[in-house]
């Protein structure tokens, strides 16, 4: 069990993270970019046009990874919120701060690609169903985290308020999920059912999986880089940072 404690403390130390994580950023960038290039070229260039949707299906390779990733980012933020409120770990706060805007962008990307995709396939950019609505709400949750922090301004106070919001937000996630799903079943079902996993042919699935992993890695790289930037900002003037700067 000792190693858990050590890891916890180490990850909690901005200094350890800052110095240790640099190779990771580069690695994740390179690896993620590589996968995205492979997956996208494959998906965009070599996958046959879909029977019903034609070439518009190709946007799937951006849309689906973005949508999955957005959810994953929120879950990590909520965990960080809990950690910050309970243990007052500064790193957790900085993670929220670094990841929230990125989460927002990724969610907007999922929404935008969904809308673009919807225009040829559904004949309209928007339908009111469980997936679209919960994605939209996710965007609002991210936006709220960013907006609240900006609005409060003062760092300590903002950190705690934002962590509280992130935590209360996560209680909300299952509630949203269920209510929104019931809501569609209470109404008439949407006229076009979005493709579900089994319905996707392997030709689509493999490049999609490659792209999903690529997105995850690349965005993880972005988040870590943003986190390091935050650390550099907050720890500016400390001795270890100055030492490190002069070394590198």
């Amino acid at each position, binding site marked *: 069990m000792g190693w858990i404690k050590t890891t916890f403390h180490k990850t909690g130390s901005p200094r350890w993270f800052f110095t240790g994580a640099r190779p990771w950023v580069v690695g994740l960038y390179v690896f993620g970019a590589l996968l995205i290039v492979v997956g996208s070229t494959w998906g965009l260039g070599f996958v046959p046009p879909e029977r019903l949707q034609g070439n518009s299906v190709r946007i799937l390779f951006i849309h689906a990874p973005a949508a999955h990733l957005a959810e994953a980012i929120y879950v990590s933020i909520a965990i960080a919120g809990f950690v910050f409120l309970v243990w007052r770990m500064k790193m957790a706060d900085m993670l929220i701060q670094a990841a929230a805007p990125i989460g927002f962008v990724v969610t907007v990307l999922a929404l935008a690609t969904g809308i673009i995709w919807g225009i040829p396939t559904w004949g309209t950019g928007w339908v009111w169903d469980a997936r679209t*609505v919960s994605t939209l*709400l*996710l965007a*609002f*949750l991210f*936006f*709220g985290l960013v*907006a*609240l922090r900006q*609005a*409060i*301004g*003062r760092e*300590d*106070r903002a950190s*705690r*308020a934002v962590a*509280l*919001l992130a935590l*209360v*937000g996560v*209680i*909300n996630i299952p*509630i*949203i999920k*269920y*209510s*929104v799903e*019931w*809501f569609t079943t*209470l*109404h008439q079902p949407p006229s076009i059912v979005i493709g579900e996993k089994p319905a996707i042919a392997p030709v689509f699935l493999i490049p999609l999986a490659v792209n999903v992993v690529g997105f995850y890695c690349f965005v993880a790289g972005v988040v870590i880089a943003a986190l390091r930037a935050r650390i550099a900002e907050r720890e500016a003037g400390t001795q270890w940072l100055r030492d490190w700067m002069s070394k590198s």
Partner: protein
Amino acid sequence: MRLFFTQFRRDLLVAVRSRSDAANPLAFFVLATVLLGLGAGAELAPGVIWVLALFANVLAVEGVFRRDDDDGTLEQLLIHAQPLFPAVMGKLAAHWALSGLPVAVLSPVAAIMLTGSTTGVGVLVLTLCIGTPALTLLGAIGSALTVATGRGGLLVAVLVLPFYVPVLIFGASASTAAMLGDPVAFQLLALAALLAASLTAAPFAVGKALAISQEY
């Protein structure tokens, strides 16, 4: 209970003193009904009334702590009210009595104006009576979180939107179902569950957020 009633009575009194403020959520509700009737014209779904009630509620709740923060009475409340919980509840109860309740009472009129029908109006009122206190409680969290910003306003609405949506969904779908003559028990249960959940969780989140708001 003493704390609850002290705060409840005070807040009602403040509202009565500023008479038009007290009438405001209601006035907004009426006004929005009129504007929607004018702008949209055609017959609207009963869900629209739920949306209007929700707006009236959130627009009122966003400022529930602001004036108290400006004049320093919030400071005093945090120092003296031990525990804070009943005082917060008293505040929110007074607030709901002046925003959610009158809107629920008046909603049949709006329903008739906008949908042109009286079917299911009873269920509409019932859902509003269960749903609006939940909205007030949830909205208060956002309001408390933004006290420190000195603004609130629409930021509150944006922060708590994801929390409102479940309430809205069940409330609106129950009202729609009632109008069509469908069963509504499930939605009512869900609404009650949401109310119970917010009654337990919200006051503590609000208290915590208020304490944070006084630091800098």
